[in-house]
């Protein structure tokens, strides 16, 4: 079976800065892949290229057997790619419910507004936001907004979900709940790419981790291998983390 998402030699430059340089990456169906790397490594840029926000300067992106390199964001969304934003982007003057309804209506399979609303309620219940359904999205706290992003993503019935730091800003206990949530999503058969700086999240969820640095893939492999990789430790984890690691694991 071919990979769900395939990047071949993808580069993206901003002026003189190469935010991504010939990245090759394949994500298999049903996988939960972690994407880590220092700040500014190009992780968000990669998500933007896959979803059509930025167009690859060179290279190709294939999704589900089709070339999606030149698609516009809404087209990517309709083919089954959903994402969350690192800097959350709700429709702040709309209610939480309406936000998710929009996702179900335009990105999902809902045929009418009423149907979309029903689906949205389901997703809100799933992420635990049903209490907040009628609040203005702009008045939510950061963590709630991140859950809202998740609900929006899910309402689109995606094949691939790109999570850009959805767990940032959660404390450990809240995070445990979030992890359970993401596991539940994966269990539905959704392929997931997680970008996160919280190693706890990445390590506990991902079957495979890829590491970006200066726009290049510097390592890929099982979590246990990655945390010991000298280059990853040097560029990303820091010595202290590496030292603390044995005690942890």
């Amino acid at each position, binding site marked *: 079976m071919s990979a769900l998402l395939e990047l071949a030699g993808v580069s993206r430059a*901003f002026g003189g800065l190469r935010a991504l340089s010939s990245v090759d990456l394949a994500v298999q169906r049903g996988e939960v892949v972690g994407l*880590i*790397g*220092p*700040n*500014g*490594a190009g992780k*968000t840029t990669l998500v933007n290229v896959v979803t059509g926000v930025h167009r690859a300067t060179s290279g190709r992106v294939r999704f589900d057997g089709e070339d999606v390199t030149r698609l516009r964001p809404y087209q990517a969304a309709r083919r089954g790619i959903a994402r969350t934003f*690192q*800097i959350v982007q709700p429709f702040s003057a709309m209610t939480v419910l309406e936000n998710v309804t929009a996702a179900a209506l335009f990105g999902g399979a809902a045929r009418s507004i009423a149907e979309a609303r029903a689906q949205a309620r389901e997703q809100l219940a799933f992420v635990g936001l049903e209490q907040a359904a009628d609040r203005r999205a702009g*008045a939510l*706290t*950061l*963590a*709630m907004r991140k859950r809202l992003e998740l609900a929006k993503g899910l309402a689109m019935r995606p094949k691939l979900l790109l999570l850009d*730091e959805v767990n*940032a*800003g*959660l*404390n*450990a*206990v*809240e*995070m*445990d709940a979030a992890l359970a949530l993401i596991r539940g999503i994966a269990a539905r058969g959704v392929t997931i790419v997680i970008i996160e*700086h*919280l*190693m*706890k999240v990445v390590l*506990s969820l991902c079957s495979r981790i890829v590491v970006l640095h200066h726009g290049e893939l510097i390592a890929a492999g099982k979590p246990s291998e990655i945390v010991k990789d000298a280059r990853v430790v040097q*560029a*990303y*984890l*820091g010595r*202290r*983390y590496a030292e603390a690691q044995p005690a942890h694991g």
Partner: protein
Amino acid sequence: MAEPLLAVSGLRAGYGDVQVLWGVDFAVHPGEIACLVGSNGAGKTTLLRALSGLLPPSEGSIRFAGGELAGASPERVLGAGIAHVPEGRRLFAAMSVRDNLLMGAYLRRDGAAALARDLERIYEVFPILAERRAQDAGTLSGGEQQMCAVARGLMSAPRLLLIDELSLGLAPAVVDQLSDALRALNREGLTLLVVEQDVATALELARDCHVMDSGRITRSAPSEALRNDPAIREAYLGVI
């Protein structure tokens, strides 16, 4: 114990009809690093906004270095020596990194030489910013932006620095760097109040810790004590 640098009592504030802070009391002592933890929506951000004058409190007092700051404008608060690194960073996106840092020093009037010296010092602490000094802040990566935001806060040469969500979105190595940098600054006399979700990191960094719940400070204690408190462990540290 010395006089507190910041003493908050009975502070109430909210947004329109929504009251968020229901009488907050706590104190921060000079020269310490204090941290503020609490679950999502507890009102931590709201508290910092009230402290820095962005959100006028409806009641209560904020005493800072002997003066009363409740109801003061952000300008006066900053002038008195409290700088605030806001949630979401809020950099000036189309300004260069350097200009952002200079904006941090907007109220300072101690001369160009002092400014230049502080700028150099900042670049030492955050070398990546030196590299990107001419780049527009809006195009920095998330972590770079956070560093720039902290650095900008420092440029006002504050006595007390408030940081909302210190480690949010930062690579582990950077969190270490930042913590080291803050400790160094703290040793030089800077007082810090940090909101941090990673309670383990927070407890490690801070001397005193304040736990916030539903718009009130429910507990204030030395970090040491909290770390070993089973209730706190269960509520905020969790288990993997």
